[in-house]
């Protein structure tokens, strides 16, 4: 995996023309760093999914530029895009979107083989990825035989099997119960932290804020508010940087706290 970052500059997407023209996304700019977890939130119809599709090279912007590793991908020909999707991006969907006729192993191996890997190698990679995600015992199961959480982990394994730079997740916890949803969130966080991949999540789920480095609020196709998430070093609580109750600069780094009490405790323990 390379140190890719996605740069979105002044991107607009319009559908239709004339009286029926609708602007789904207008003038959005954004940079996603390697290993960063970015959460895009917003009301229904705000343009989240349209933006995600453009970021994932599934939809071409009407205006603006999207760069991956410095290469403009928003200008690429339709015939060149599959290669980008296959090798640079991984997708996780709300409905899992596993191929019903294939087993968990085959679902993952298929995507590896699409990237040109020989059958044996593709299956090895798929098996390793699934085992790493705790599905070593479920390799031969069809999607209908798996639980929701297992299906989503298969989908994540499929998204990771070609070693992508960026993972796009569309409402990854929407069809999962609370406990499994938390597991999936932690998994996505770990993928970003341990593997240095960027993770872009579109969701309504407020709990995902806990694992995000940044939360973007999209409304009427524009970013209204940009929030950076931080963790209180004392109690471990995830909080919006701008709404932190207290902050402290120590040894060249800035720390944010959920309460003055936590800052006092930090000062007492660390600063002395």
């Amino acid at each position, binding site marked *: 995996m390379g140190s890719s970052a996605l740069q979105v500059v002044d991107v607009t997407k319009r559908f239709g023309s004339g009286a029926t023209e609708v602007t789904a996304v207008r003038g959005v700019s954004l940079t996603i760093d390697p290993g960063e977890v970015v959460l895009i939130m917003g009301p229904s119809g705000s343009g989240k999914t349209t933006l995600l599709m453009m970021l994932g090279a599934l939809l071409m912007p009407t205006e603006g530029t999207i760069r991956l590793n410095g290469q403009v991908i928003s200008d690429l020909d339709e015939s060149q895009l599959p290669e980008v999707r296959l090798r640079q991006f991984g997708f996780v969907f709300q409905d899992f979107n596993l191929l019903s006729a294939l087993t968990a192993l085959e679902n993952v191996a298929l995507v590896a083989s*699409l990237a040109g890997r020989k059958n044996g190698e593709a299956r090895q990679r798929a098996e390793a990825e699934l085992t790493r995600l705790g599905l070593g015992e479920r390799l031969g199961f069809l999607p209908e035989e798996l639980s929701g959480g297992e299906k989503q982990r298969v989908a994540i394994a499929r998204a990771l099997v070609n070693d992508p730079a960026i993972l796009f997740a569309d409402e990854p916890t929407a069809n999962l119960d609370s406990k499994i949803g938390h597991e999936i969130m932690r998994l996505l966080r770990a993928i970003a932290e341990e593997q240095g991949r960027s993770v872009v999540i579109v969701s309504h789920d407020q709990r995902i804020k806990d694992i995000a480095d940044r939360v973007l609020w999209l409304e009427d196709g524009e970013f209204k508010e940009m929030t950076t998430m931080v963790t209180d070093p004392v109690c471990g609580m995830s909080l919006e940087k701008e709404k932190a109750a207290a902050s402290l600069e120590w040894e060249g780094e800035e720390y944010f706290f959920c309460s003055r009490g936590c800052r006092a405790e930090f000062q007492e323990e660390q600063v002395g």
Partner: protein
Amino acid sequence: MTRLALRNLFQSRARLAISVGGVALALMLILALDAIVGWIEKRVTAYIDASGADIWVSQEGVRNMHMASSSFSASLATGVARVEGVDSVTPIHYLTNVVEAGEERTIAYVIGLPDQARAGLPWIVQSGRANPGRGGAVIDQGIAEAAGIGLGDPVEILGEEFEVVGLSGGTASLTNSIAFISSRDFARLLASPRMASFLLVQLKPGAAAQEVASRIEANVRGVTAQTREEFAGQERKVVRDMSTDLMAIMNLVGFLIGLAVMSLTVYTATLGRRAEYGVLKALGARNRDLYLTVGVQALVSVALGLAVGLIFTLALAELLPRFSSNLGLQIRLQALGKAGAASLLFAGAAALLPIRQIRGLDPAVVFRRR
């Protein structure tokens, strides 16, 4: 992608059964129809093939029996017999007429045989005798059974009643049969005692049929002489020419049925997995990968259809003669080739529409909530 194609195909067993069944039916129609014509062609020349004659001599310009009339003076037999290489000459009468046996009326080639015929006799005699003799008739056993008559019973041929003295085998087809009476009865009924329809020539050992036929035409005026193979070939050609249009229409019907069934099943199969194809596109599958999937599905369906169609046709060919001696199937290699080619066309054409559909499929379809 091949694995996905096969899994998709076998996952929807009902759809696969419809697809394979439809193709099998269409190919069976093509194969069976050709096999029926093949069988008729074989049956229509059965008498010629089994006549024992090396050369068939007919009225000049007449080259076959079916729907043809040949008539010349029986005295020409003497001239033919003198030609070098000729061992024996059997003059026969021939006419297409109706045989009435009980309530059954069937169209028949009526053959008039001389008492001392050395060629042209029924080649399989199930019961009774081969040469009918005066007042007697040899008819096909299947026809006799259908009419509920047997040896000793009356049968009406050329408007006169004859006694069944022999029952032959292999002398009936879907459309007609062969009945044998004596030449004398034949000549009397047609009031042409000194005429013959064909001369059946047997050769001396070592004589070449083609050369003797040429010598006959050179030495005897007003006749056409052909080797048995040539004469049978001409007969087959007439049947083939007569059935070409019918065959073409039925083949087209079979082809259209097969095409419609295949196209519909492959199309609906693709439509049913539209979302999955969208997922694959979103994950980075190229159009050609997806075309391969559709192509493999169409090809495997058609191959299975061809196999099932062939098995059914073979079974039909085996079973049909048990129920009717007048009908059989002769499966020909060229028909298999034709069915194979039709199958490939089915597969190709059936895959076209889904391929168009896939080409236009927006990968963003995966984000539309189901």
